[in-house]
């Protein structure tokens, strides 16, 4: 089945928010903080601008609480008297002419009485940098099982290590953008987003309106990767405030530079491992400390930290585990959701550390992993018993087989002593990724999907899950068509418009195909019953019955809904952090071959193998695209993408200076599947979207360590950083 919207995207006919007609709209722009922390002393509107022609909004124009509704309410929609990070929005202005609006923004001076900013999340703040509690800690979380200290004391070997990863910018192709207007008293916003109902909640709260007075429509979205999870709530509020004040439609489209400077990024993280092994190499204790930079407001940091620590001990069996997680408030632009959501950071540390341990113990890194891999019947760090029938050892073996590990190691040994300046190495990472919301999250979401049978016999699927390039439209179509045994052309997917679609939850956490896809199936089943058919009815019979139903019930609507139900036996305790953290996990082993150029200290990935068990693969092309795209994004994070910071803001916020991979920086990415079905996912599918972000970082770092013998424990491994690491090492 072809990708449904593929042709319109390829041919440029797809209309993104910036392409949508919006008659009489004003351009809206944002005036931002020039400082990381301080009190706003004054705001000066410069000369030479006809200010009366502008609509200007500040915090006083917010009808409800000046809070962006999310986990906590600490973040203002617009700063009132105090700023906590660079680029924090303070004022909004709008004008018919985009260039005049842009020029006017530059004529507004914000004067700040600066206060000492906390800019390094790795160290505790000085007293004058404290802004939350006693120590700027935003959130702590802990997982504990067994007796770690005792086990470490008894262990034959204890290996320690510190690992660090940097921020990462999403670089969705389409920048953030939003339209807002008021239609018969209803505030409508339309734009690029992942989670329409998050925007609804934010609008309801700060605009003091009930749900019937706000409406959110997703426009075709050019990529999200988590960057359009919470941020569109801000933009929608901004556009709505301007539209309400101007009494005209308002369009806000960020340019690349503003987008990179002002929106969220991946949390920087530092992870410490202290690991005990018995004499044979069996894991006996894992003590892990995770610290993340949350930035200036809470935003999603508690849940990013949560996923981070749950993945921190990896796919291994160990009786004594203690994982302590801490997210710190700093005066950096708030960090947010990004594909993997904390897991890539902790899995980098873990899987890099496994190689360090293997070297210390004198065991082959593959053998060390195989020996400790979790087996059916054993428990994860949170005490979740794994019993899914997936053959994890085979996942690992396939990766070593496809990368031809023994043969290449031998070739490299010769190559590395004969080539004047190139060095090759190979590295592997074994990992897992929990799909869906963590713990009781899916139960709390109560996601709903509706399926309607139309007069002409076609089917319409209504959900708030969004297409953002990953293939939701195609996969939902395929799931519904196959469930009912009808042609995909007979299935429509409704535009996520909160006036029409039920809340199927946010499009995040690799949950759409697996969790929401399953709801599509169940809603299809219910529709069959509604149409007077048995659940196994398929094909033309189904469509005939739907048409007949409409004849019998003129002017009525045939539709049915499915609501999420907790799979039987799944238990989670939020207080103790024990139980079934996720409904299921995808398992994977990734292997990278790298070549390091000693002239320029540049590492390049020259071959890549990705083996994974993701349950049923629903659409091979799309799934392969997810894996390959994720690997490319992770190659960028591992080798190229460095945010250069200045006072907690990104200095290199242009695509010329923030370097993402081009096709020439990417090796062949060879994707292999194992398909152990998951009973509660659509057709047996598990989530796959985030998985490929987890493995490449450590596999590449391990390969670099293997090639040139450096402690490649910090990402990104830019040439400058590799040079520093190699200083001292003989090259």
């Amino acid at each position: 089945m072809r990708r449904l919207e593929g042709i319109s995207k390829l041919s440029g006919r797809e209309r993104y928010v910036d392409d949508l007609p919006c008659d009489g709209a004003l351009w809206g722009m944002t005036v931002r903080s020039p400082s990381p922390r301080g009190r706003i002393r004054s705001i000066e509107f410069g000369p030479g601008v006809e200010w009366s022609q502008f609509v200007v909004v500040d915090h006083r124009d917010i009808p409800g609480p000046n809070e962006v509704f999310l986990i906590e309410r600490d973040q203002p929609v617009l700063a009132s008297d105090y700023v906590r990070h660079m680029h924090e929005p303070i004022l909004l202005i709008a004008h018919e002419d985009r260039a005049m609006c842009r020029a006017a923004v530059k004529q507004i001076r914000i004067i700040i009485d600066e206060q000492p900013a906390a800019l390094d999340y790795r160290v505790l703040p000085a007293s004058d940098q404290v802004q939350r509690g006693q120590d700027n800690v935003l959130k702590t979380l802990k997982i504990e099982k067994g007796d770690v200290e005792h086990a470490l004391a008894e262990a034959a070997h204890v290996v320690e290590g510190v690992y660090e990863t940097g921020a990462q910018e999403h670089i969705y192709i389409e920048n953030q953008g939003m339209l807002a207007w008021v239609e018969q008293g209803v505030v409508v916003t339309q734009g690029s987003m992942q989670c329409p109902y998050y925007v609804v909640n934010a609008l309801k709260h700060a605009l003091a309106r009930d749900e019937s007075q706000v409406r959110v429509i997703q426009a075709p979205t050019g990529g999200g990767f988590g960057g359009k999870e919470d941020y569109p709530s801000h933009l929608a509020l901004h556009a709505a405030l301007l539209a309400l004040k101007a009494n005209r439609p308002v369009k806000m489209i960020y340019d690349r530079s503003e987008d990179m400077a002002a929106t969220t990024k991946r949390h920087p993280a530092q992870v410490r491992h202290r690991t005990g092994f018995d004499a044979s190499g069996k894991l006996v204790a894992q003590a892990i400390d995770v610290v993340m930079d949350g930035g200036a407001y809470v935003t999603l940091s508690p849940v990013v930290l949560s996923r981070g620590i749950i993945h921190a001990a990896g796919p291994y069996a160990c009786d004594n585990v203690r994982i302590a997680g801490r997210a710190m408030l700093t005066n950096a632009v708030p960090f947010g959701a990004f594909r993997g959501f904390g897991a890539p950071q902790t899995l980098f540390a873990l899987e890099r550390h496994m190689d360090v341990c293997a070297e210390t113990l004198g065991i082959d890194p593959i053998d060390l992993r195989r020996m400790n891999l979790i087996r059916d019947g054993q428990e994860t760090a949170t005490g979740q018993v794994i019993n899914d029938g997936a053959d994890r050892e085979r996942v690992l073996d396939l990766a070593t087989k496809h990368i031809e590990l023994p043969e290449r190691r031998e070739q490299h040994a010769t190559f590395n002593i004969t080539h004047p300046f190139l060095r090759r190495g190979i590295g592997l990472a074994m990992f897992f990724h929990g799909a869906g919301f963590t713990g009781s999250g899916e139960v709390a979401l109560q996601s709903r999907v509706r399926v309607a049978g139309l007069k002409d016999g076609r089917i319409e699927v209504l959900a708030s899950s969004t297409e953002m390039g990953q293939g939701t439209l195609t996969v939902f179509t395929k799931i519904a068509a196959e469930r009912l045994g009808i042609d995909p052309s007979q299935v429509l997917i409704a535009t996520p418009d909160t006036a029409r679609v039920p809340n199927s939850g946010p499009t995040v956490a690799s949950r759409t195909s697996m969790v929401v896809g399953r709801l599509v199936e169940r809603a299809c089943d219910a529709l069959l019953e509604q149409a007077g058919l048995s659940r196994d009815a398929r094909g033309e019979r189904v469509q005939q019955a739907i048409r007949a139903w409409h004849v019998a019930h003129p002017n009525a609507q045939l539709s049915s809904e499915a609501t999420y139900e907790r799979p039987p036996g799944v238990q989670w305790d939020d207080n103790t952090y024990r139980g079934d953290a996720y409904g299921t996990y995808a398992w994977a082993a990734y292997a990278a071959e790298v070549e390091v150029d000693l002239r320029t200290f540049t590492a390049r990935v020259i071959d890549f193998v990705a083996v994974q068990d993701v349950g049923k693969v629903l659409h091979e092309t799309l799934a392969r695209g997810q894996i390959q795209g994720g690997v490319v994004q992770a190659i960028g994070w591992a080798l190229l993408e460095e945010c250069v910071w200045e006072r907690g803001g990104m200095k290199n916020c242009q695509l010329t200076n923030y370097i993402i991979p081009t096709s020439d920086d990417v090796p062949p990415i060879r994707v292999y599947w194992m398909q152990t079905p998951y009973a509660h996912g659509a057709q047996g599918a598990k989530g796959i979207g985030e998985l490929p972000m987890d493995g490449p970082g450590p596999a590449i770092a391990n390969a670099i360590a293997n090639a040139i013998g450096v402690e490649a424990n910090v990402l990104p491994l830019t040439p400058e950083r590799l040079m520093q690491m190699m200083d001292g090492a003989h090259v």
Partner: protein
Amino acid sequence: MLVQEPNSIPLAGATDVLVHWPAHLDAHAKTYLDLSGLDDLRHISWNQEALTLGARTTYWDVIQDEQCHQEFPLLQHAARQVGAVQIQSRGTWAGNIVNASPAADGVPVLMAYDAVVVLQSTAGTEEVPLNEFYMGYKQMRRRTDQLVVAIRLPRRSYAVQVFEKVGARRAQAITKVGLAMTRSSVGWRVVASAVAPTIRRCPSVERLLEQDAPVCSPDDLAEAFATDTQPIDDIRSTSAYRARVLARVAFHALQSQAPGRS
């Protein structure tokens, strides 16, 4: 027109001038002189002594020219590494010179081939060796009433020809360190980019090579490069990296292209 409006800005491929157009609002009020009608300025011509590139000659024009490839292979090496095809087909060598970026890729190879910039105004023609064209960061020996009309390269036979561009990725990247090196009957030319306010020759390194001093490791070149360049820390790299890599790239290039040299 350049006489009447001395501050007007010539536009060739506009790949430098227009990059920041939407954000640089003050650029909108300036006067621009579109050179696209001047077909006489777009040519690749040869005589006994020299190759002449017209001022509107693009990278792509040179990439497609077989004789350029034979006699001045570094022009193609460099051209292939400027942006991607879109930029190669619009961007001009003269625009690269006058834009005067210390990280330009066209300039170093031209300089290593002893190129001469031909300037013209209503007052007449003036020729400035490219090597003497830059006086400081974005400062050059070109009066605002002068157009670059051509770039002339003397024809010689070369024993060594090297161009190395070190960017942050393999394509579509601004140079962090660049090197062009030639050896001909007139001697060595060593040109470094992105390690000084302007692209420049490295006289100490050239002297060292002329004297046939032994070069057994990058360290043997590093000191001379340090005399000739002033690399800085900036958003794209560090001065330490630039210095180290320049010497290493030069060393390995010498090893492969002139192994029997020392």
